[in-house]
């Protein structure tokens, strides 16, 4: 269980995290979604006590993180897989973590096997690791203390498709056993497949949160046509509000039957007509991304 209440963190005049409130529940995977620079990492850093909050609170398992007697045994944290000593071997890195938590060294080999780092790879220095291997080592460090809560910042970065699949199964299994998982991503689709709950953040503020089902079940109809301009006009004439959604697409605030009739009457050929599940979330996310991304014009 993670609870964040009215959390604000400012850097000079910049409000990196602005009055953020949400909770991650046990037994569920909570996806923390937002474009790069939205405040995800800062929020997570405040959660684990690396960055002090300007105001507001964050608690893990009902306590401030710094008040946990042996945090690694209760909360597994991976904030940045590249933040590991390059001159230490993978095994030594994991041994340092295990020693700090007071675990037996047998756990180290067990954990290396769990994250599929071979004994040979474990003897290499982290300097020679790919980002994917560093992520696996970071996950091992997070899991080795047998925690109840996982806080992972962009854990899928650098993993190959099989690795991403592995990570997904691992987190699902962890949540199914009653664990709390909070993971961040800047990719909507990546988080859509794994998360039960979503928290969407942009410019330091929460813009949407709820269960995945709630957020994806947007009312409306998605319609595509090669003559999208004509269709938009026809819908407007019939008093149906519609917004652009993807190439040659509109999301209309009416059911599919109604939109189909308007299109037929206007003589506009359709290439797609369906309930707009998730389209609302995607639009919102694209809008958010457009403000900060360099490819803003394209979105």
């Amino acid at each position, binding site marked *: 269980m993670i609870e964040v209440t009215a959390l604000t963190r400012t850097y000079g005049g910049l409000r990196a995290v602005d009055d953020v409130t949400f909770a991650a529940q046990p037994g569920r995977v909570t996806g923390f979604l937002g474009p790069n620079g939205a405040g995800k990492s800062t929020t997570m850093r405040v959660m684990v006590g690396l960055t002090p909050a300007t105001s507001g609170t964050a608690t893990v398992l009902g306590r401030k993180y710094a008040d946990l007697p042996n*945090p690694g045994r209760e909360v597994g944290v991976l904030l940045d897989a590249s933040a590991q000593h390059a001159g*230490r071997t993978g095994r030594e890195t994991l041994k340092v973590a295990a020693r700090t*938590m007071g675990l037996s060294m047998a756990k180290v080999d067990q954990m290396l096997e*769990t994250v*599929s780092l071979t004994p040979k790879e474990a003897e290499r220095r982290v300097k020679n690791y790919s980002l994917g291997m560093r992520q696996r080592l970071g996950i091992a460090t997070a899991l080795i203390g*047998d925690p109840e809560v996982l806080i992972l910042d962009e854990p899928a970065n650098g993993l190959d498709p099989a690795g991403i699949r592995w990570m997904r199964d691992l987190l699902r299994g962890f949540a199914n056993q009653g664990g709390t998982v909070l993971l961040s991503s800047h990719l909507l689709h990546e988080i859509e497949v794994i998360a039960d709950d979503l928290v969407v953040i942009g410019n330091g503020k929460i813009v949407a949160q709820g269960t995945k089902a709630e957020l994806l079940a947007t009312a409306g109809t998605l319609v595509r046509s090669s003559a999208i301009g004509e269709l938009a006009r026809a819908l407007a004439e019939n008093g149906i509000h519609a917004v652009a959604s993807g190439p040659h697409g509109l999301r209309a605030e009416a059911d599919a039957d109604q939109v189909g009739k308007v299109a037929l009457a206007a003589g506009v050929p359709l290439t797609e007509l369906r309930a707009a599940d998730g389209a609302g979330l995607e639009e919102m996310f694209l809008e958010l991304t457009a403000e900060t991304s360099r490819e803003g014009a394209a979105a």
Partner: protein
Amino acid sequence: MTTATTTGIERTAAHAAARTAPAPIPFTRLLRVELIKMFNTRAGFWLMASIAASALIATVCVIAFAPDSALNYDNFGAAIGIPMTLLLPVMAILSVTSEWSQRSGLTTFTLVPHRGRVIWAKMLVSMALGAVSIAVALAIGALGNLVGTAIAGVDPVWDIPASQMGYLVLANVLNLLIGFMLGVLIRNSPGAIVGFVVYGFVLPTLSMLLANFQHWWERAQPWLDFNYAQGQLYDGGLTGNDWAQLGVSGLIWLVIPLTVGLAMVMRSEVK
């Protein structure tokens, strides 16, 4: 791979229901972890290897090249001690700076969310390393003295009085503390090592030159030049005045920057 994964995870979260709060991390464990961390990196390994190698070379050189009259405990001790006094402070520096330069602090300070405890452990380990290493240097020096004089067929000369050993330990601990201080003050590995070279070699030379030409500095030097004041420790027999000079210059060059550095470490973000 998949099977291992699944079983590992089921086991991991299995007793989530019946958990007891873990015991707090004892400080002795932090001391042990920080000591190990000094040696289990590539840099730590090579620093230790070069200390051992240079001590060995220096001892052999004393036996091979020094005249029989110079085969004494003082020279054997110095042969091993000097590489140590140059290289061990670098280990103290890296133990602090690597948390920032290598960014391993992200994990360290998450596993132990009380930075003061970690830094305090690093400082104690550095000081202990200073004390232990000089004892090792003296022990190996004694061995070298026995072997060297036996080879040369002369009587061993024990010219480091027991009272002097205490001063040597203090000098070496101060030396490690200087490295630690530069580490917390600069928090960047290359920067702090350059700082150590300037602090230990450039500044004393400049101070000496200045004292040669400027009478006012010659008079102020014992009070303001920490390196100069420390020199007395190697010669032994400190007077009250010597202690006062060591205290005043140490306050300026060690205690104050160390305090500033510790305050900065507590607040600086590990990015």
